[in-house]
């Protein structure tokens, strides 16, 4: 590689760092965090509905998971952003992405939460009941703390997955980390450089998240030997 080209690449790299960081802080991280935070209560509610004795709760929950898990997030995203305007519903890009991700993560998360609840032995519920607890008390005090512990690794996985999925936001016009990289790549004709940089950004963030997950898991493991 001649020195001129190397210098040009270096310059583009340096100049792209700040805009990509802006994209990360303005869109990538907020989208990921807000969607996930909203998805958790959805996941819990859907998991409880799916385990319910009542069919009127169980069937809709299963239906929701079936639809959402069976279709690509990208299709869901396009449906909301490009499809809904056809029926008169126009949402701005940011809420669109949050909505699509919340719905999708809620479905995947509900399966994690459901299996975590199921992993707590039936005897633990019974022990709660034998003390005279109501179903909710037994869930809240006995089963949920143990289920949280079990669900942390897969939920951490989902969170990191969502961070990367958030790059789809670029396809509905948001200038997130990937969107910025895409744009600079298009104007400089250096896609290799820009997409490697973007990849490194994602890698760095998910490494931090994975570390956070380990800390959290350790905190919840204290009661085991």
């Amino acid at each position, binding site marked *: 590689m001649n020195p001129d080209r190397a210098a040009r690449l270096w310059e583009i790299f340096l100049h792209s760092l700040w805009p990509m960081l802006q994209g990360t802080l303005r869109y990538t991280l907020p989208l990921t965090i807000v969607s996930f935070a909203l998805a958790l209560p959805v996941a819990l509610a859907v998991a409880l509905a799916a385990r319910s004795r009542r069919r009127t709760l169980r069937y809709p929950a299963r239906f929701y998971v079936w639809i959402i898990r069976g279709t690509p997030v990208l299709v869901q995203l396009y449906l909301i952003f490009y499809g809904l305007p056809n029926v008169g519903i126009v949402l701005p890009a940011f809420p669109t992405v949050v909505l699509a991700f919340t719905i999708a993560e809620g479905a995947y998360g509900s399966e994690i939460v459901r299996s975590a609840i199921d992993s707590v032995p039936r005897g633990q519920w*019974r022990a709660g009941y*034998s003390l005279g607890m109501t179903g909710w008390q037994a869930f809240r005090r006995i089963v949920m703390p143990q289920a949280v512990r079990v669900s942390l690794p897969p939920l951490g996985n989902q969170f990191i997955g969502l961070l990367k999925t958030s790059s789809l936001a670029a396809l509905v016009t948001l200038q997130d980390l990937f969107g910025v990289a895409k744009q600079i790549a298009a104007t400089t004709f250096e896609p290799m450089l820009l997409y490697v940089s973007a990849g490194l950004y994602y890698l760095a963030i998910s490494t931090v998240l994975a570390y956070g997950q380990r800390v959290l898991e350790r905190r919840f493991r204290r009661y085991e030997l």
Partner: protein
Amino acid sequence: MLKLAGIGKSFGGREVLKGIDLTIERGTTTILIGPSGSGKSTLLNCMNLLEIPSAGTIELGERRLAFGPATKRNQKEWIAYRRQTGMVFQSHQLFPHRTALENVMEGLVVVKRMPKAEARSRAEQLLRQVGLGAFLDCYPGRLSGGQQQRVGIARALAMDPAVLLFDEPTSALDPELVGEVLQVMKALTRQGMTLVVATHEMKFAREVGDRILFLEGGEIAEQGTPEQMFGACRNERVRQFLGRFAETAWNERALAGT
């Protein structure tokens, strides 16, 4: 005090309990013996409604609950009833995310809405009573099987139940740990607690039982005082059953070389 009449329980067409009639007087110890699958556990579970009987009635003090095919789920009544009974499980079922002390406090704080400080001192006192004063802040995973079971007893006692039910409390324990649990239970009988115990510890049954019930095929096949049951029982099935125990005990001793 506790009166069962015609209690039946079926699981998907299989009849596990067939019309059990049983009255338990205050301050007595009732022992359930019988081969595995005879319905001992199911009977205990029906006595605190962890299983809902398919038929019959249960009376405890003023409360009377009836069960049948038309019985609707009546959570409120059932929970109120459960608060008057305590249960000690074969596999202790302590809450692994709570210390010994917190395990005993849990019911007091959540169910009885007792202030924390008061619950703590009551729980401490109970754990000392079962000989675990030095283990208050241990998580169950750090305790031996016998210690775990004694925490389980303290946890059930904390709720001040009218009757305390034991579902084979020593069956999952190493032999050398059985004694410490039985000792705690013996102490309870001396304090006038009402106990119902499913067990295979025949020596214990003989020593502390006021009445022995022999269950087989979901029915009370025979009952009597320890003398009647362990002496020359008229019922051949009882003699056979107890005979097998004498045999195992003898075999174990032979194997141990004594």
